[in-house]
């Protein structure tokens, strides 16, 4: 477990790339005080934890057969990226819709509680090299407990990076941060769509 904790710790900065980039702007966009941020953050971290446990179980169950297949990995993560990225952009656009906007569906889909959950899923399915490593590790390890422990360690290590985020709510000038945050969420959506597409065509962005 210690090795995966250290792995999480060292790759946590990359994790911040996949979701900090989304989550930080999101927090600024919605900043309704430290309390709201803490609750969003816990939702987010909880989702990650749950997804990791699911992953651990899956990894243990499927073993080498599916997750080591690069094609499967690229397709699934590509599709997921695009799916969630579109949701993100919807969300950021949705926030600025005037009440008379015809795209009503956007605002109905846009359940604010769900956003941190989406992000948690996107992030934990990020398939960063570190995660793949643990996946393979769990897949080759005997017991399910070992698999869980490996993911727990990774979760703890990488989550440390998100703990200072509640302070983001202390900013003055909420309106400005809200605007910038919303725009940045939209941009992150675009980045994820690109990432999704490149995963799909099997290319690689950012090494």
């Amino acid at each position: 477990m210690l090795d995966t904790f250290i792995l999480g710790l060292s790759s946590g900065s990359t994790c911040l790339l996949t979701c900090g980039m989304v989550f930080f702007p999101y927090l600024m966009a919605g900043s309704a005080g430290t309390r709201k941020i803490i609750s969003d953050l816990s939702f987010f971290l909880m989702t990650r934890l749950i997804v990791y446990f699911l992953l651990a179980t899956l990894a243990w169950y499927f073993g080498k057969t599916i997750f080591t297949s690069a094609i499967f990995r690229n397709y699934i993560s590509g599709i997921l990226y695009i799916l969630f990225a579109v949701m993100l952009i919807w969300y950021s656009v949705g926030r600025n819709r005037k009440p008379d906007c015809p795209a009503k569906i956007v605002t109905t889909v846009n359940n604010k509680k769900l956003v941190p959950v989406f992000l948690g899923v996107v992030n934990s399915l990020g398939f960063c090299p570190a995660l793949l490593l643990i996946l393979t590790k769990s897949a080759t390890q005997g017991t399910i407990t070992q698999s869980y422990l490996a993911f727990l360690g990774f979760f703890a290590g990488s989550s440390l990076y998100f703990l200072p985020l509640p302070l983001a709510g202390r900013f003055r000038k909420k309106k400005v941060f809200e605007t910038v945050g919303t725009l940045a969420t939209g941009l992150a959506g675009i980045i994820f769509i690109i990432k999704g597409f490149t995963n799909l065509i099997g290319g690689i962005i950012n090494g």
Partner: protein
Amino acid sequence: MDETVNNPSMKKSFGKSLLYALPMFLITFVFITGGKPDFSDPAGTLAILATFLGMNILYFLMHYTGKTDKFRAIIFIVFALSLSFTLIRNMLEIRHSMSFSQADIVECKIPFCHLVIPMMILPAAFTKSIIFPGTILGGFANISSMAVLWLVATLVLGRGFCSWGCFYGGWDDGFSRLRKKPVIKKISDYWRWMPFAVLLMVAITAALSLTPTYCSWICPFKAVTEFEQVTGMESAAKAGVFISLFLGLVVILPVLTRKRTQCSFLCPLGAMNSLSNKITPFTVKIDKKACNECFKCVDVCPLFALTPEDVKNGKVSIFCSKCGKCVDACSRKAIHYGIKGIPAGSMKKFSRNIFLFVSFLFIAVFSSGAIITVIKSIFNLFI
């Protein structure tokens, strides 16, 4: 509105304008010629003289006519064109192509440009190193001297850098002046916050990947300076992005809107410069007593720096680049160059004189090298 409000014109008499232009004349002579012009190269000497005289005539006219933006724009646009020309010529001479090869990246020989600065800060703090494949000292456009120039310019001018210093801004400034009337009039000023979002993204991605992501994926000015050789899918995609952003944000939208859309909606350094507007002593002020809320200034501002609310509150926003367009447009002289601490409506001439001296001196000396190179090349064609 009280029509008798004291609104001194910024115009000066011929003699007085000459007197004001004299210090600039002498100082630019020393800075541009290095104090001792070399007459052995006729084309070079002529180019230096032409640049030096042209600039000083523009400065004189700023005092004589009381208008700023028109004359500033000339030097700003010529600077942008000249710099791109110089860079491309350099590339063609040294590499026989407009693009960098991978070797230039591997050997860290890429000229540095100020747009990289927002991406350098986090990595410099965490890794104590610079994430740009350029040279620290020596060579063409090295990191140290560009950093010093930008640092001092933003400290002194704030976002004034974006109208008196940046050698890219002249591109969209130029295209935004091509049509007399805008075709697209309504653009929400909401989008003016976009550069901050870009700044945030670019700073985070650059820090985490330790590569200048804006340069490698977004920068529209790659299209007119230099870009990575197209060797595969990725570099082709990049070239596509550079060219479409350049066409869209620097050419087409500025022509249609009469606004500097690239600077207003994309450039992350512009966002950073806006923040530095808080430090600089120079600003643009609105004298609420003199203003009749005609909002002409709002219409002409190329950077969405003014909204009707800003005018009503008597405050210019942080996006202002001190270009002077609004100042020139206001028939009541209610909006004017000012110095922080001095109340709006007072000491207008004094503030303008100091600001013009400082900002003009910067752009005159900073741009002179590139402009001289271009004029010299033109002379060489004919002589």
